[in-house]
């Protein structure tokens, strides 16, 4: 069972895979990634692919907005991933 910091680290890694320059950028849980990192809809989709690779769970289209922020993404993964 992953801890919250471990889940957060995996989420940030998925984001950094899409936006390499985000590595090392402090991202609080409530910051809007679309504004902070200028993520567009294609970027968000690629983050979801990274989430699936890391947690083995596919984020449905209806829940895409949960991944606009790290905090809500973390909460979603804790709820939906079988053993994050």
């Amino acid at each position: 069972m992953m801890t919250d910091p471990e889940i957060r680290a995996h989420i940030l890694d998925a984001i950094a895979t899409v936006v390499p320059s985000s590595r090392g950028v402090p991202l609080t849980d409530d910051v809007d990634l679309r504004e902070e990192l200028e993520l567009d809809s294609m970027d968000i989709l690629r983050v979801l692919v990274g989430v699936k690779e890391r947690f083995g769970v596919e984020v449905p289209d209806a829940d895409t907005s949960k991944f606009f922020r790290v905090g809500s993404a973390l909460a979603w993964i804790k709820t939906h991933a079988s053993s994050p």
Partner: protein
Amino acid sequence: MPELTFIMPSLGADMERGRVGAWRVKAGDRIRRGQVIVDVDTDKGLIDVECFHDAVVQEILVAEGHEVPVGAPIARLQVEGATAATTTATKAAATPTAPFIPPPTPTPVRALSPLPTSALMSADDTARPLASPLAKRRARELGVDLAHVRPGPEGRITAEDVEAAAAWAARATAQTAAQTAAVPTTAVTVTAPPTPAGEAPPKDPKEAMRRAIAASMSRSKRDIPHYYLWQDVDVTDTLAWLKAENARRSLSERLLFAAVLAHAVAQTASAFPECNGTHEGGAHRPSDVVHLGFATSQRGGGLIAPAILNADGKDVGAMMMAINDLVARVRSGGLRGSEMTLGTITLSSLGDTGVDGTLPVIQPPQVAIVGVGRVVDRAIVRAGAIVVRSMVTVSVAADHRVSDGARGARFLIALDKALSTPPASASSSLAADAPPPAEARP
């Protein structure tokens, strides 16, 4: 067999010089139409340049790393089966009416193959640190460890970054810069003189990009008499279709609204030659095929609008894969010369930024551009009642030398209809992964 002089191509209305990044062929090689033969480093990044003839390479004229003006000979080819006399490959490439052979199907990773979810990632995304092919080559040549090179403002290591690191290391070890530069780069013959010292100072990629955009947009505003039209389009039904479609699709096959937009623009443009083509040399050249420029922002600033080739032949599913492939290559390298030169109309969607609408600037030598803002729920009057609908403001800027407002309005109304009506179907990635047609319509 006639000889063909392969020149440094113009990969954008603003391009004046280009640097030979890496040759993909050598003297004696046989090349096929559509084959990428050289990478050219431009202000807008590294572009893969194709040859549009079956030919045999006779001689490489400009070595890798050297910068020459647009139009300068960079290779000699011997064309097979051609009837024309000496010509230039790039003139054919830059003419929308010229037949275009799609290049070989991209690698499975870039082609969004259906099975692995990693298909949405480009190969370079997983590499650390990110570096252009030219930068990697220069790093090997100069013995530079990319892990020790500081990336440029876009987080990507360029050849200049590598060379700067090599020069620094050389100074640090008390070697001269001349000794560093003496490392052999390639065995090709150099008959073009190297760029004189001081003529092409090391450039800041971000500054170079701004210069390129400034040149292109200034030309557009100077030469093209724009007129603008806009329309609020009800996309409620289309979004409902998109939602239902995505509910049954896997993550790797998911569609974005951008693909629906691009599909609608391409289908509409194919019926309006006044809005689809180019204006060069005082004449309008309508195009029967739609090569849809897709305006894409670059990390850290800048904009580039490579074309989705043969866009009017793609359904929404195929369009989604084309966009995904194109955006990945905008941000990690691998754009082709044809994609930079063959555009016939452009789509600029700023919906993700949150603005309501845009009045875009035409990309020369094209004659129209479509702008799209964000989708927003609005209260509108429908059949005497106030209802809430999902609306998006769509605009078109068109060239008054080619069309008038009345015709542009018909284009926009047709686009409204295409966009407000759900697409008839959308292929899955399996079907859309089929190879492109052997030859685009002229």
